[in-house]
């Protein structure tokens, strides 16, 4: 038998930015043509700007069957990469590697499972992808932000499934921190939890869920920073 494999595939792809969708003063989405890019809802890509020397990971914001490949980006003050992304205009080339990651949803699970999605800030991205891919999924999405304006594309979620916790204004579903809201919740024992966002929020949410008696194996995490 031959041990040679001359057909190694390359995984680099270059895409032209189709549209920048401004969502708040410092948050925007980047829409790329999807072409043949296949991924599973919940996965992320590594994004670079052609001609630049760095890349960052971004969860895919669009659904598996959407026309575009889209990511949601918050410009980080004094950040290195996001200020460059913010200056991107339609027509510029970006470099996409991936998809990567095991965070996400098995199609079989989506049909039968009961889910609570917990996100801080742009951590909502993989959940939008999941909800767009599996429109019949049984979920509740708890989203922690500072201001209600950061409830990105909230009209897309059924209002009884989307809880936005706002810490700095009272225009959300709940005024206060996501973790305070979480403490007040009761969930069915078979609930599966998916958490995405910054590690401090995830750590606190994990502690709360464990205190409520949920097993760590019922909880999946995607840490951004």
């Amino acid at each position: 038998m031959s041990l040679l494999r001359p057909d190694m595939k390359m995984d680099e792809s270059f895409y032209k930015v189709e549209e920048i969708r401004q969502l708040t003063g410092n948050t925007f989405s980047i829409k790329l043509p999807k072409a043949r890019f296949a991924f599973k809802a919940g996965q992320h890509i590594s994004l670079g700007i052609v001609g630049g020397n760095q890349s960052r990971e971004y969860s895919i914001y669009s659904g598996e069957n959407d026309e575009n490949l889209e990511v949601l980006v918050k410009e980080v003050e004094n950040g290195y990469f996001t200020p460059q992304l913010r200056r991107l205009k339609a027509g510029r080339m970006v470099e996409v590697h991936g998809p990567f990651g095991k965070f996400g949803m098995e199609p079989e699970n989506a049909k039968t499972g009961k889910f609570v999605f917990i996100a801080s800030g742009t951590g909502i991205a993989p959940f939008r992808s999941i909800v767009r891919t599996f429109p019949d999924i049984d979920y509740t999405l708890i989203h922690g932000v500072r201001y209600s304006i950061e409830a990105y594309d909230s009209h897309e979620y059924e209002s009884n499934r989307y809880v936005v916790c706002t810490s700095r204004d009272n225009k959300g579903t709940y005024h206060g921190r996501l973790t305070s809201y979480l403490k007040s919740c009761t969930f069915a024992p078979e609930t599966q939890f998916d958490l995405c966002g910054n590690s401090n929020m995830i750590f606190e949410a994990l502690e709360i869920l464990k205190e409520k008696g949920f097993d760590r194996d019922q909880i999946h995490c995607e840490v951004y920073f």
Partner: protein
Amino acid sequence: MSALQIKAEDLSVVKNNNKTVAFKTLGCRLNQYETDALVTDFSQAGYELVDYNAEPDVVIVNTCTVTNQSDQKSRSVISQTARKAKNAVVVVTGCMANNFKQKLESQENITFVVENNRKSSILTLVDAHFSGEIVHPDQLPQDVFRYQPVRKSLHTRSAVKIQDGCDNYCTFCIIPMVRGRATSRPVAEVLESVRMTVENGFKELVITGVNIGRYEDGTVRFEDLLSMILEVPGDFRVRISSLEPDGFGDEFVKLFAHPKLMPHLHLCLQSGSDKTLLRMRRMYDLTQFRRTIKKFRDVYPEFNFTTDVIVGFPGETDEEFEQTMEAVAEFNFSHVHTFKYSVRKGTRAERLENHVAEKIKVARSLSVRELSVKNQISYFASFIGKTQDVLIEKITNGIANGYGQHYIPIRFKASGAQKNTVHSVKLTEIIGDDEDCYLLGEIIA
């Protein structure tokens, strides 16, 4: 891909060229395996393997870049090599070649810089060089699995590579940048490689890759593959190189009842603090890790666990470090490979806040080391009076050296026993500590 790409079919080599070659390897088991496979390539092509002090015609330095210290070591080996082997063709490969390609290419004392995914074709490059052809390393085929089964090795144990790359993107780790994304070697190739390595006379195989627990070829997962490997006929034992503590289930535990599979795992904990683990983007918490250890020790009480720990990760508080110490004590790791966190350019942790002072890292590292030695001594001592089956790796002055099933180093009077044979040895005494610790025994069969 370049139009000048050399096809895999063109990889035949000239025999008996009267040239000498030396290898220098740094870093992990995977690198060691890849060197061993290159040794096989070169010796089959007629190159004589020599020490790198013996003015070889070719020197191959297989580098590592996992920490700042590995970079320093790699750099110093390269300059030593270039100084000693003045007229040699110097080939630098391995992870540092990926991480610092341009810088290394501009160094006059290096002839070729070959990235990991082209490492398996170094013989072609060197042969072409000697026959006057001008081949650039970027023209070599990219294939991380093209290595042939090890025939001639610098060791008695041979690795079998089943996987390369990693998609976990732990925040401290440079490996995804230098080894690429996770890719699994097809089952048939792995099994063929196992058969041939056993035919080549190796009595112990180490299943190797960057993140082998994530092996996936169609529906075949890591434990399925391992079970198939164990069913390959022949007299050999199997070890597993380091493993991430997630992604395997009860079937994996059961496999260790197989007499060919050795009861030792290097299970990477990295930290005993759940908060630190999250900042590292590790996929498990301490409770899950504890559960895994318990599953094994409930069935195999003497099972040996060793681990990697990073101390001084950005933001690691005294309390978080204490949790690591507690975990090391609780899990009774017989060896802890302790890394002081070092910034790797381009990783996410580089941009995390609250980097820890070097002085604190040094002190924490020392504490873990001391605890590790204590664990080691108590674990090794628990084998005194028991018997281990030892594969002899070398015999020096009549004393045989090798490892028992649990990966404990053992020495005994060879009494006519040969290298690369397995013997039952009754353990009598513990000698030394840390890297130099071993058990002394008497051969009984």
